């Protein structure tokens, strides 16, 4: 017994030393790693053959074929052949031996080659139907500077659109908040990254909490809540220039900003008139229109895609539920009736699918309600403390935040909930993901 007691004490010391070492490494490790959690056997089989090299220039610093394959795999609609099973390496359609890929039960094959010359990455690729032995796509994509990985996302988008018939959303960005350290040593950052978590770029740093990042429809700005002044305040910041403006620092809560689809207005939750109410701010004049009038908490407004109505969280019936109100004002209608707690809606591009945090007891999961099928709901996350759902602009996938042990992590999940992928920041807490709009090339 004595040795058993002594060993843990030694181990505690070792664990403390390990923790200290990890903390010291905080600044060093800033990358995001990816893991496929679940696979779907019914997904479309596709092979992305590693791309060949064109010309005598240096090798491309990014593996474009791998980026394409990862994108297609994580959206849940495709199943990519692992590199270890790719037995031949064609780089053009003429080199494809279709019998091989038919035997491997592949429906589609992507081949290509890349050159990297003077900092410019150029990729020629082709998409072939394996069974029909027919070329479906042939294109050249070029990128330079810090945008090399976008070549892969762009190709994945083109393939997705050709096969699925819907615009791809891989060449997009996400925003999220990170926190490292505790208490007075806490360091918050608002980060913007590619949709797969790569290329993180810190937009704002603060020693006080940052929350609720949200994108302008043109993808150039983010609005967010910062406690840097000691109380909540809403800012809008240009991502490229860093220029920012304070849009609300009234007494009480300044929270939950969301841009209207035309980018001219901002829906917010403000409590300067006594308790949190939904307002719409005209961003040109700063004028406020108050939409809700009662003593409950009204917050987390989100616009319908046509800008005509706003869905928000209210506990006017006791627990938080979702309500819808005309954007110009009117009578709110309750729209959620399943689950004890429904909050923080994300509305998809056509307004049919509402993703929300649904709480039952101590379990909080992401639920998707389909309004086109009479409000049928599915859960797309396992819990127990999942929140901040955010649709991809084509509604193929969602981002959400989960708590694993002591820290927060981000997941992307296919719209049917069947394929999840963790985007893990290697240190600290990651939270409040927001999926940005389509990018212009």
């Amino acid at each position, binding site marked *: 017994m004595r040795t058993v007691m002594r060993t843990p004490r030694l181990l505690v010391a070792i664990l403390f030393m390990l923790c200290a070492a990890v903390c010291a490494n905080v600044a060093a490790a800033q990358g995001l790693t990816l893991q496929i959690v679940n696979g779907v056997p019914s997904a479309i089989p596709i092979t992305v053959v590693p791309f060949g090299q064109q010309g005598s220039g240096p090798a491309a610093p990014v593996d474009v074929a791998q980026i394409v394959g990862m994108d297609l795999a994580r959206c849940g609609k495709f199943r990519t052949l692992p590199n270890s099973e790719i037995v031949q390496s064609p780089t053009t359609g003429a080199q494809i031996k279709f019998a091989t890929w038919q035997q491997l039960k592949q429906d589609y094959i992507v081949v290509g080659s890349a050159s990297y010359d003077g900092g410019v990455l150029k990729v020629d690729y082709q998409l072939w139907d394996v069974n029909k032995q027919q070329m479906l796509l042939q294109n050249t994509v070029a990128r330079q500077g810090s945008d090399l990985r976008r070549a892969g996302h762009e190709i994945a988008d083109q393939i997705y659109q050709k096969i699925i018939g819907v615009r791809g959303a891989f060449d997009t960005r996400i925003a999220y908040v990170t926190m490292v350290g505790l208490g007075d040593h806490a360091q918050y950052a608002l980060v913007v990254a590619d949709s797969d978590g790569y290329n993180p770029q810190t937009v704002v740093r603060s020693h006080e909490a940052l929350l609720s990042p949200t994108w302008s429809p043109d993808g150039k700005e983010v609005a967010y809540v910062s406690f840097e002044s000691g109380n909540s305040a809403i800012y809008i910041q240009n991502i490229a220039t860093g220029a920012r403006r304070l849009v609300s620092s009234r007494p009480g809560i300044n929270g939950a900003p969301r841009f209207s689809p035309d980018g001219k207005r901002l829906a917010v939750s403000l409590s300067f008139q006594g308790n949190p109410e939904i307002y719409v701010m005209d961003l040109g004049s700063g004028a406020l229109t108050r939409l809700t009038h009662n003593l409950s908490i009204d917050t987390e407004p989100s616009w319908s895609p046509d800008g005509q109505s706003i869905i928000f969280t209210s506990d006017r019936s006791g627990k938080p539920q979702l309500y819808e109100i005309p954007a110009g004002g009117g009578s709110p209608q309750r729209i959620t009736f399943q689950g004890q707690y429904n909050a923080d809606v994300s509305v998809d591009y056509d307004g049919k699918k509402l993703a929300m945090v649904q709480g039952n007891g101590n379990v909080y999961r992401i639920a998707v309600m389909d309004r086109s099928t009479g409000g049928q709901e599915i859960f797309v996350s396992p819990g127990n403390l999942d*929140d901040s759902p955010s649709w991809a602009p084509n509604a193929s996938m969602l981002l959400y935040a989960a708590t694993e042990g002591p820290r927060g992590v981000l997941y992307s999940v296919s719209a049917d909930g069947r394929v999840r992928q963790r985007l893990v920041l290697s240190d600290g807490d990651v939270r409040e993901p927001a999926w940005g709009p389509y990018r212009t090339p």
Partner: protein
Amino acid sequence: MNATVRVSVVALFCLAAAACAKKQEVKPAPPPEAAPPTAPATTEGAFTPADLQTNACLRTRVIYFDFDKSDIQSQFDNIVACHAKYLRDRPMARMTIEGNTDERGTREYNLGLGERRGNALASALEAAGASADQIKVVSYGEERPVCREHNEGCWHQNRRDNIVYTAE
């Protein structure tokens, strides 16, 4: 890692888990100084700033809430009474009430819930004679937990109002 060490690691985690479980059973009651028997709410004579350091009731600067609730529990009545008396006795004194929640639920909703808890204490102080312009309420929602485990023992400690004197 050999087998003994591995077993020890497991033992360590079990010990830690047991410690937490035990804490959870004891926790529902707030810290002992919350109900000091030696702090009658209606002290003869006026409070002075020195009392903030020495008076057991005034030294208590936190009250706790039930899950999803914002009503002031009767066990904190004496805390409300002594801080209200301090504000009455010291018209130049100013206080910020920081409302907080546990981690369950969404961040923005919890900002609202934290504010509701802060307002509940402010209203109770005002009902006991403090002036509204002496009190400011700030909600931090779930952003400033004092405990980071995912269990009721921890959540209970986080569902709180903190009293901060900004002028004594």
